């Protein structure tokens, strides 16, 4: 049985190449692409992933039927190059030609052609038909080093105290905030920042990667191959209180700045992290054991949220699904079924999970964006998930949303007099107040109520139990029943689902 994708979560390595290379202003990319491939990656989507109007340093070869039909894409790329050259757009820039799924589909290999374009032009075969964006980013970072850095780096000496950050590229969720916090953390531990590659680097600077004593790789998904090639010790960027503390200590050891690192940790506990200590001592932390969490995000975030929210704060992790998917995890089909049947109190995810929750009418579940796809602006640097500040931001977000839940769902008698009365079976509705007192419930009816409540997140159960009870008794009155029957409660529950 061939594999069917439900709501794709990961883009392709062609996107990875564009989003990595074009972050550097002294690069110009010609993508060997039909117009749609170009529009999506360079203008339509980065509006909503990175909040930029468009990626300026990329031009498509515009594959048409002529190229697909047999002429190949060489002449189109040549033409595109000549136009760019004549308009002066390539002045002071290095040109890179990148393959796409369609150019690979028609077997277009431009390794020879690029030698006839502007000197130094290279061809990157993006493997777009087989690799995803994560693998693609890892490969293109290494490729950039090999083609634009390694040779010149032979003469460069390592300078003690300097630290590189490898990643992010365009299309990395929350990157500006996380990067900002990791820079602060590195400096706190006694390091000095060298190259932020590729986000804040130029192609001409790539050899400078060799100067750093330590490399910090922002994501577990990509950048490690390059970090290994650079030959210096390297660390993954941290999440959670323990993870961040260990990171600062380790970086201090590697740089020989242990004292500074230790002082930073002590100072952070008194400042940044004091919010967590206070919320822990306060009534807020009492909710943690009953606040369950689902996570769909890059593996870095899945591990970080699991460590911090799960292990450190004690929130039950209902499920986690990494991008890219790890063996044994729920795929989108599985996540969808779970969110339809038993959604947790919080779901971190992409627009896919948001759609599944809306399909299920899961109004008791809080959705927190944590992954692409999905339009979002995350350009404020005060919303990190990584580092110490990330822990405070995450916890603040969760507690504030719990307050929202209280506001929306705690029982308020006046709220029940409004709205339709689910389960009404005839037009002659009598107000429930006509018949005061509790109606008897069949045991099976009570069991059905309990089972339905069990599917809801903890806090809203209080209001939901009262709401369902009132709806069922109202329906019983209207149907002229003397008790709430199992059949009636099923009808009421079915109406609530719609």
């Amino acid at each position, binding site marked *: 049985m*061939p594999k069917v994708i439900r709501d794709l979560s990961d883009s392709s390595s062609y*996107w990875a190449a564009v989003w990595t290379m074009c972050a550097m202003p002294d690069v110009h990319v010609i993508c060997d692409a039909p117009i749609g491939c170009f529009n999506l990656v360079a203008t339509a989507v980065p509006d909503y992933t990175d909040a930029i109007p468009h990626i300026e340093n990329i031009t498509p070869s515009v594959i048409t039927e002529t190229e697909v039909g047999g002429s190949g894409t060489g002449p189109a790329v040549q033409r595109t190059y000549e136009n760019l050259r004549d308009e002066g757009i390539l002045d002071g820039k290095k040109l890179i030609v990148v393959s796409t799924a369609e150019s690979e589909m028609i077997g277009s290999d431009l390794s020879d052609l690029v030698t006839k374009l502007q000197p130094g032009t290279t061809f990157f075969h993006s493997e777009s038909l087989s690799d995803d964006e994560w693998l693609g980013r890892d490969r293109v970072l290494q490729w950039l080093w090999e083609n634009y850095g390694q040779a010149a780096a032979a003469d460069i000496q390592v300078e003690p105290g300097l630290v590189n950050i490898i990643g992010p590229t365009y299309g990395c969720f929350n990157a500006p905030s996380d990067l900002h916090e990791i820079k602060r953390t590195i400096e706190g531990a006694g390091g000095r920042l060298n190259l932020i590659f590729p986000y804040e680097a130029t192609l001409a600077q790539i050899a400078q990667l060799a100067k750093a004593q330590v490399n910090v790789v922002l994501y577990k998904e990509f950048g490690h191959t390059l970090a290994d090639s650079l030959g210096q010790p390297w660390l993954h960027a941290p999440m959670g209180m323990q993870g961040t503390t260990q990171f600062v200590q380790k970086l201090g050891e590697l740089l020989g700045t242990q004292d500074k690192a230790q002082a930073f940790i002590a100072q952070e506990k008194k400042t940044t992290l004091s919010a967590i200590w206070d919320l822990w001592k306060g009534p807020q932390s009492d909710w943690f054991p009953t606040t369950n969490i689902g996570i769909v995000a890059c593996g870095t975030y899945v591990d970080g949220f699991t460590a911090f929210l799960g292990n450190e704060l004690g929130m039950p992790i209902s499920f986690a699904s990494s991008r890219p998917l790890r063996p044994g995890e729920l795929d989108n089909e599985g996540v969808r079924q779970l969110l339809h049947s038993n959604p947790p109190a919080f779901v971190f995810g992409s627009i896919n999970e948001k759609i599944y929750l809306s399909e299920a009418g899961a109004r008791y579940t809080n959705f927190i964006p944590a992954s692409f796809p999905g339009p979002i602006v995350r350009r404020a640097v005060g919303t990190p998930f990584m580092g110490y500040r990330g822990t405070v931001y995450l916890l603040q977000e969760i507690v504030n949303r719990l307050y929202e839940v209280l506001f929306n769902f705690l029982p308020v008698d006046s709220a029940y007099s409004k709205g339709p009365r689910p389960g009404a079976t005839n037009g002659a509705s009598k107000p429930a107040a006509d018949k005061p007192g509790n109606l008897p419930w069949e045991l099976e009816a009570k069991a059905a109520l309990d089972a339905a409540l069990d599917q809801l997140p903890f806090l809203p159960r209080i209001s939901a139990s009262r709401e369902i009870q009132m709806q069922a008794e109202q329906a019983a009155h209207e149907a002229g029943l003397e008790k709430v029957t199992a059949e009636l409660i099923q009808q009421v529950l079915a109406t609530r689902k719609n």
Partner: protein
Amino acid sequence: MATDTGCLYGLTFVTHFYGARKSILAPQLGTSELMAGQVVEGTRAAIEVAAKEPGCQLIPVVSLCVAETAGLPEEMLPKKIGDAEVVLVRVPAYAIHSHPEAKDVALAALLKRLGNATAPKEKKTLALLGEVFPADPLAIDNLLRQMGVEATITLPGRAIDDLRRAGHVGALAPLHPFYKETTAVFRSWSIPVVGGAPVGISGSYAWLKAVGSLLELDPKLVNDVAEAERARAEAMLKAQPLSGRIFVTGYEGTELAYARLLVEAGAEVPYISTSIGQDPLVLPDEMWLRARGTKEIVYRKSLEDDVAALDKYPPDFVLGTTPFCAIAKERGIPAMYFTNQLASRPFFLSTGMAATLGFINQTMKGHERYQWMQSFFEGEAADA
């Protein structure tokens, strides 16, 4: 959706941004599946999963570059599965160069399958063709009923039944000029087509008259309604005339119609560009505009075409694509994304004119804000 993962990711991303909010299925089409020739098999598997969704009646199969290059023969796909119709829509970007034209191809494919061509025609009914603001068809329907039209349907509609009923109508009125294949489907059903669109004063007047004569409505009644509408439109224009130089440079295929409205309202529109190709359907608008001062109309435009025009005819306001608007804003020129801002407002007849022109007038009044932003970030004040 039969395509590679990059394409699938981008298209579903944009689809959801514009509110589709529907789970989307696709066959995995990577190197190994393509090498093994599993495009058909994979697509069939995705169709089977889709058919299991409760209440599923229609499964459009959108075939894009990679699947089209590999080959996806229609006869290898089921026509129907359970209660659901399966309709193949072929829209590879290498052959269909703009999304308006892809909308046309998609709708034509759906109509060919679902439209009932042999049904007796309901003479005094009209199909309105084009993705428009939801209130627009209501306004049009209201006027048409006053003229004696018995019913209208809008395509692409909100219900599958609208596609089925399309074969019954007395006439077709394309509101946008790029529905070439869809119009051909209606012609093949012997359904006559109304030219033009109810845009602006003269356009709306002529269009109402054309509908009246095509559907053989009472000429006196039609005339009364058309005259009254013209009077309303003229009064509206008098109340809020436009001035200044405006560019209309979107990629929706409706740019010429919008430009026409702006010109009628008093604006100067020297430059218009669009993503669609030149076609006889656009020609009347093109001629009308050229006769009223439009100097350049670029079909299948590139960003470079638009930027060149920015130097040539410095505008007071730009309605354009996102990259072009960004460039205009870098120069302190008020600019808005044509797709998001105009498609979310009524446009047709006098009510549409009022909404569209009111919005543009209001935006142009804010030009100082655009200049302030530009000078704050990049002008003389940037380093202060």
